[in-house]
């Protein structure tokens, strides 16, 4: 099985987000970048499928050279090789076009990624990639098993889940509990250093969207505390003051 896993390099989930340059750039000072948590699930499942049935796992990132530590970690976890498209990921369509250009003639049976990146949370890239390649897309995938040329999938829907079957090739957006996150071991880290990481230039693209600037949410007002033995007062306040019930 030939699997492509697309990963993002994103600020750690505990990051306090701030901006610089008049709110036009993310302040990267002191920020740790990690593989997108959802992408990590996709990668872990891809490595498991390879271990079960053989094949290859290729990791793909659209990003600058500063994303390479994240890519090397994916190689250490068990991917065989990696491709970095040398461009800032400006929007979902741009990233999807880059992925589609790489995947177009490469006959991957599975193209996996996280259900969404945790920076823009759009959750759109897998669907656009699939549309550009003329393939089905399914997200968010919680269980993925392969039986011959058929994928057996559990997808989360509002208030529940559904069991799906579809023929490969497929593009899937993944989330927990598709696999346990994998932590690279020392051997993985050593071999990752010599695994191939190819850098390619982006395909030309028409800019469909642009971020003009960013903003931080206004802080909430001070919390109003209610003594536990007067808990009923909370309901009165929600009714008469906050007017939400």
């Amino acid at each position, binding site marked *: 099985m030939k699997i492509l896993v697309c990963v993002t390099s994103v600020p750690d*989930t505990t990051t306090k987000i701030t901006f610089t340059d008049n709110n036009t750039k993310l302040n990267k000072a002191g920020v740790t970048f990690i593989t997108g948590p959802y992408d990590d699930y996709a990668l872990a499942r891809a490595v498991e499928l390879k271990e079960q049935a053989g094949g290859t796992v290729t990791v793909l990132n659209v990003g600058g050279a500063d994303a390479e530590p994240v890519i090397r970690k994916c190689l250490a976890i068990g991917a065989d090789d990696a491709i970095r498209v040398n461009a800032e990921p400006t929007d979902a369509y741009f990233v999807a076009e880059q992925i589609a250009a790489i995947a177009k003639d490469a006959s991957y049976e599975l193209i996996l990624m996280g259900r969404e990146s945790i920076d823009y949370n759009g959750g759109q890239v897998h669907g*656009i990639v699939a549309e550009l390649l003329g393939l089905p897309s399914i997200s968010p995938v919680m269980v993925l098993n392969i039986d011959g040329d058929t994928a057996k999938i559990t997808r989360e829907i509002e208030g529940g*889940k559904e069991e799906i079957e579809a023929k490969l090739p497929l593009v899937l957006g993944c989330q927990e509990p598709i696999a346990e996150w994998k932590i690279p071991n020392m051997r993985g880290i050593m071999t990752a250093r010599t695994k191939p990481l190819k850098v390619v230039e982006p395909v030309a693209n*028409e800019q*469909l*969207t642009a971020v003009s600037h960013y903003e931080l949410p206004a802080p909430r007002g001070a*919390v109003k505390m209610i003594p536990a033995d007067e808990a009923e007062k*909370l309901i009165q306040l929600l009714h008469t003051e906050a007017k939400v019930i």
Partner: protein
Amino acid sequence: MSVLIFVELDEGKLKKSSQEAIFYGAKVAEMTGTTATAIAVGQADDSELATAGRFGATKVLHASDTRLNEPNGMAYATVVAAAAQQEGSTVVVLAKSSLADAMTARLAGKLKAGLAANVIELPDLSNGFVVKSSIYTGKAFAYNELKAGIKILAIKKNTITPEETDASATVDSFSPALNDSDFVISVKSTEKATGDILLPEADLVVSAGRGMKGPENWGLVEDLAHALHAATACSKPVSDLDWRPHHEHVGQTGIKISPNLYIACGISGAIQHLAGVNSSKVIVVINKDADAPFFKSADYGIVGDVFEVLPRLTAAVKAL
């Protein structure tokens, strides 16, 4: 040239989030000097669809081919793309949902559209077409200029409060060509909680964490939720421990919600949990630990034992 709004049906009825999308689309139509057209896909009565008029749509296109009876993101995207072409629409609005999420991307691919997800305000047309969206899981906002000829806006719950009139929309049947390649995924079975309020649609949410000590104590949470007509939610550890199903998990790696009221019981408030709920209008935190970080992000707080506080709150709601 009309603004096109995808209307999602739940058992033949307009979903509440779609009413919000119609009202939003109608406002954009007003701003751009055009009309709002809704597109509904699947089984529904014309009389129900005509209620889209109350929220500002002048016309509803109804695609009711029997192959569209079951929600199918790919086929629905094909239908909406065809409707956008027929109407010459340059703005397409959808309310975020698991179905709409599956459609938005495919639509963007088909129409080569400029796409903004998690939109939280009406667009600013004073200098191009700029929309504000929630990013970094609610920790920040981006102002996105949509430069493409066709713009797709996926709006978050509570972006706008719909106002109703007694207007009615005309309903036209719509039968675009369908692609066989959109019907290659087969849904074998669906498991869906019935009778409960869907969490992403809920105005009020009662949520609980490990402070509840075990799944057997969830009755207290459910009692308050039922009294308030609220949905129930939980923190990640609770879903990881299988105390509650995954679709109730709110937070960074679960679902993100923006209800009017979020009541957190026995949840300490890790930054990853806050990320999923911080766009709630009002946040209430109940925790026995006065130092729980969640109190810093709350509007109202009670330091106390959830096992004593919850029944008192339920009784107080019933007495309202």
